[in-house]
């Protein structure tokens, strides 16, 4: 990169590519096309006519890449493309929400026909994790970084080097101007006092007056872009397993489970699961709404949990020694948090499993005793002392189903228990067999003399808990905070400058604000009130 400089008539050395002299603002004649100042009366002040790399060097590949990404037009197109794809991805559910046992290759076509098939084949069913969507977002990131540097550096230089004494052309070609003011010493003093009242910093040099305020507002866009970059960096970090844990565990009532993702260090016990619904009779204010609904409206899902920590490093298969860490009520919106991990209430299987089944044995309406089958222990035998009876469990099916080969168990979870057992008693002539299923006991032979009744069943709920640990959250928060600061800084404060330029006994006044010209005009009224300043002309007003 060549390091040529351009010397302005005011003596300031400007970098190559400068459009307006950094010191006096005089247009550098051969560079006016860069900002398109040739065709219009009002100078382009957006980047203060500073030398932008992208507009100056256009020869090498690096220059061209830089030039491409520094363009706002390119940035806007990237955002628009991302926006359109993001929206298209919502036409049908994403793969993770499809809620169907069908594989995606069949699901979308089956459910939505041809358009669904196209949706799937274009890869829209998994859009937000796809390499091309991530690339799009990354390109926006590159665009943000390059376009910010390309503008921030020259803008800062120009604002730092600006002099009080400006070139006449610069002042006269501002958007809002007032020419040929005949101002007395008094008028000038009033203006200066008013400027200070409006919190301007007022500088003077050889009769030239320069007032400026809120320059920091110009950095707003760069600050908010830094915030966005931090958020993008945080999302890159989040792609690595180390930075976040996302796991799931089902815990039955009364059960202790190792919390996945914690390396067998933490354990959770489900003391009780609570499921409540709204009752139309007791909740009077909701009667109107509750009358109409067919299904009960849930009020609360809650797991009363105790969290333990293993104090030893257990050898495989050995039971760890547990020490209580904390206990709490986990509800939706109220996770339990311990040592950086959070447990969220995520799923429920209300009374889906049998804890125990109590049965009573009778002969001729005389009780021979009762027994309780615990589904976790699943004992193989019961002794009923009072009648010297033995109950032998022949088969135990936690989740009973009937296949071609007869009864079998679908899983090891007692969701639909089936028990085949034999009763041997001195009171009976021979052993009798029974089958417990679906809360009833049926004799397995026609001539069974004894009777078995189900006296009680105890069911239990299982609670689904999500385990989370996310080390990137503070970084996201930081990014969001910086973004908000930057946006406010850029949008709610205005960088305003006023130049009062003496020329042949009269004064020309030029005014610049980076936005909100409406407010600027109101402020000008206050500043020139009680003086001989002519009314201001907006050289760019919409007619």
């Amino acid at each position, binding site marked *: 990169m060549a390091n040529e400089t351009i010397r302005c008539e005011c003596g300031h050395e400007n970098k190559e590519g400068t459009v307006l002299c950094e010191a006096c603002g005089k247009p550098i004649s051969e560079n006016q096309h860069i900002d398109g100042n040739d065709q219009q009366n009002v100078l382009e002040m*957006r980047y203060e006519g500073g030398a932008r790399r992208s507009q100056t060097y256009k020869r090498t590949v690096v220059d061209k890449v830089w030039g491409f990404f520094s363009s*706002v*037009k390119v*940035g*806007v197109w990237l*955002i*628009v493309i*991302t*926006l359109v794809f*993001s*929206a298209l*991805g*919502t*036409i049908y559910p*994403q793969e*993770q*929400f499809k809620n169907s046992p069908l594989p995606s290759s069949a699901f979308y076509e089956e*459910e*939505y*026909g*041809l*358009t669904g098939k196209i949706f799937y084949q274009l890869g829209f069913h998994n859009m*937000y994790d796809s390499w091309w969507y991530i690339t799009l977002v990354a390109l926006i990131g590159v665009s943000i970084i390059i376009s910010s540097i390309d503008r921030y550096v020259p803008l800062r230089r120009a604002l730092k080097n600006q002099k009080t004494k400006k070139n006449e052309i610069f002042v006269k070609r501002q958007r809002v101007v007032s020419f040929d003011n005949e101002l007395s010493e008094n008028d000038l003093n009033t203006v200066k006092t008013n400027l200070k009242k409006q919190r301007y910093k007022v500088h003077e040099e050889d009769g030239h007056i320069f007032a400026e305020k809120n320059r920091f507002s110009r950095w707003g866009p760069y600050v908010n872009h830094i915030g966005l970059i931090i958020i993008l960096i945080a999302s890159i970090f989040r792609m690595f397993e180390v930075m976040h844990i*996302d796991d799931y565990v089902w815990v039955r009532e009364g059960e202790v489970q190792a919390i996945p993702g914690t390396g067998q260090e933490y354990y959770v016990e489900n003391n009780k699961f609570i499921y409540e619904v*709204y009752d139309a009779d007791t*909740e009077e*204010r*909701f009667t*109107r*709404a*509750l009358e*109409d609904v067919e299904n009960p*409206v*849930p*009020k*609360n*899902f809650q797991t009363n949990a105790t969290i333990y920590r293993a104090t030893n490093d257990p050898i495989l298969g050995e039971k760890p020694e547990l020490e209580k860490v904390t206990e709490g009520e986990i*509800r*939706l*919106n109220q*996770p339990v948090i311990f040592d950086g991990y*959070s447990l*969220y209430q*995520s799923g429920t299987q209300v009374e889906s499993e049998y804890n125990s089944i109590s049965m009573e044995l009778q002969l001729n309406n005389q009780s021979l005793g009762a027994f309780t089958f615990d589904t976790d222990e699943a004992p193989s035998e019961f002794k009923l002392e009072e009648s010297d009876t033995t109950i032998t469990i022949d088969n135990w099916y936690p989740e009973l189903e009937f296949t071609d080969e007869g009864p079998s168990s679908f899983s090891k979870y007692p969701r639909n228990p089936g028990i085949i057992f034999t009763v041997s008693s001195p009171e009976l002539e021979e052993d009798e067999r029974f089958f417990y299923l679906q809360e009833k006991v049926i004799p397995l032979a026609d001539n069974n003399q004894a009777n078995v009744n189900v006296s009680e069943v105890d069911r239990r709920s299982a609670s689904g808990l999500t385990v*989370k640990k996310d080390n990137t*959250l503070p970084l*996201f928060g930081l990014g*969001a905070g910086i*973004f*908000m600061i930057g*946006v*406010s800084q850029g*949008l*709610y404060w205005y960088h305003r400058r006023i130049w009062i330029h003496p020329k042949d006994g009269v004064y020309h006044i030029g005014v610049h604000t980076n*936005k*909100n*010209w*409406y407010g600027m005009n109101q402020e000008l009224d206050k500043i020139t009130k009680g003086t001989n300043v002519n009314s201001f002309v907006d050289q760019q*007003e*919409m007619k």
Partner: protein
Amino acid sequence: MDLYELSSLFLNITFFLYLIATAFFGLTLGKNRESNKKSKATRIAMTFTIIGFASQMTSYIFRWLQAGHIPVSNIFEYIYFFSMMLILAFVVIYFIYGIPALGLIALPIAIVIIGYGSMFPQEISPLVPSLQSNWLYVHVTTVALAQAILSISFIAGLLFLIKRVDQSQSSKETTFLELILFGVVSTIAYIVLSSSFGAMDYEATFTKELEEQTVDVTYSMPALFQPHDSELVTEGVFNSGIETPGWMQGADAGLKLNTLFLSLAFGGVLYGLLRLILKGRRISALLNEKFDKINPDVVDDIMYRAIAIGFPLFTLGGLIFASIWAQQAWGRFWGWDPKEVWALVTWLFYAVFLHLRLTRGWHGKKSAWLAVVGFAIIMFNLIVINLVIAGLHSYA
């Protein structure tokens, strides 16, 4: 009379107060801008607007007291709160800029929005567990306020376009402008149809087989399109015998198509009548003439200012607060739920608006058209996402 009924009563009063205010804003038309701001009609119109706002607020508070939680938990309550914020934003803008013509657009839009919202179930429903959080107060209200302020930019944009689009010949711009007006008329048509047939207790029930189950679909408007493969059960009601095409999914597909078609058709009739009354002239051409002297620079500034305030507020409510709540409720701050995606779409869109305006000088008409598109996105997110694309946010 319990609080719920009081609340409904005040909502009805509000509706009429806004109508009266609109009529008085109408009287300010055609005068020049200087005397307009101070005219008697403007003062009366603003008085009615503010009383209307107070009445709506009262109605809202009664509802809040009855429910025991802030009424922003279903689509009716959300639209209700949104319309209230829209009026509030307009009142604030009026006291800063003093443009009565804005009221002539803002109030009818607010009225149509309230009317539209009232078509949804209004019963006070209890909070399901996922909504039981203080973030409900913070997140939803901030989003509604932000969207209301962003809508002000649409209202200013519409005023700008009515004023600045050349009506001497028809062009793409005049066509699009008419389309916007047709959209508004069709929404009114929907409200009229829905409430008239609602008052008549009109019902036509169809049964259909869906995934090996028999489903009942009840129409509350005459069925021009009955559900695909369905049978009419109700006796003595109109039935065209035309079926909804099978590729439209879901049990309610026919119902939605029917309502949409009837609203657009009736909207078309109303629009056609208006054009007939105007002897074929475009409605926007008439409005252009009526909205006489308006300073386009100021309207343009309102358009920008609304977005300058609405955008950061939307970022805060729709993305930041939303993420914090999502983290707390579901353990993930972002999950690509359709509503979340559309919040991102909205945010990206207004980011584009700001970049084009601030760095590429898109002022005036270009800006105004963008403001219109922005409003369309907000309405899409509010209505279509909730009603058509189901996701975690479909509470209504």
